[in-house]
């Protein structure tokens, strides 16, 4: 088994996608700030996109569909980042903090 042939193998891309997804989950769980959580969420989306592109390259009959889907994921991620960051700015203006522990006004 050679590691130099990994680039032409479906499994290596799937493991890379899973690894990025895991790092993103770790970031969401451990980060204290809202912006840090948004950054980790971007990593989750990228991990999912790598999975789509890997199946698109190796198994799917039409290699256009996965690329188009990845483009749509990118557009949705851009919209999510814009909305999330404007919410963060608004929260900062109200609470003077971006710590997720401080925004507990709705906590029961």
């Amino acid at each position, binding site marked *: 088994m050679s590691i130099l042939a990994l680039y032409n193998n479906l499994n290596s891309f799937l493991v890379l996608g899973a690894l990025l997804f895991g790092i993103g989950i770790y970031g969401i769980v451990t980060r204290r700030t809202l*912006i840090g959580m948004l950054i980790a969420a971007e990593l989750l989306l990228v991990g999912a*996109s790598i999975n789509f592109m890997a199946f698109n390259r190796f198994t799917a009959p039409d*290699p256009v569909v996965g690329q188009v889907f990845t483009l749509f994921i*990118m557009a949705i991620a851009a919209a999510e980042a814009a909305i999330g960051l404007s919410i963060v700015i608004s929260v900062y203006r109200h609470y003077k903090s971006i710590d997720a522990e401080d925004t507990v006004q709705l906590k029961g």
Partner: protein
Amino acid sequence: MNPPIPLAEAPSLFSVDGLVGLVFLIMVAITIIGAIIACNSERLVRSVAGLIVCFVGVAGVYYFLNSPFVAMMQILIYVGAVAVTISFAIMLAAPEEKMKLGSSSPLVGPFGLGTAALITGGFSVLALRTEWPVMTKINDGSVKNIGLQLLTNFSMVFELVSIVLLIAIIGALVIARVRRES
């Protein structure tokens, strides 16, 4: 489009296949190191820099998946737009001297690591143990084909994404606007 090479056949390092494999390993290393920096650094600015490094590595990985167009879009949209937006938000909303956060529970780190390891391991085992069916390609996935399908088969979704982006921009403006009456 090359058929997948079986892992048992080792290409030599100084053949074309071997060099391509080396570049792929470098790209994977860039991606993973960037992701770890993005999730672990103390300052948010460094974490955005790690995110940019990770996205450039992912663009390289897309190149290996026969889609240079998506790689280009990855750099344009993620590095050019999303990362810049996040750094603007950090400049607007996170002054570094006010970043003294309260101490979190000491269990957060190990539990987060455990959750991430479980998810990664589960997905990897699932991916490695499944026999994925391979179908024959019906086109080559070139930029020309992407453009044709984007404006014929997927035109409805294309328009919907445009509307979603428009609404997101307007919504972001409305949320982040300074309300003068208060």
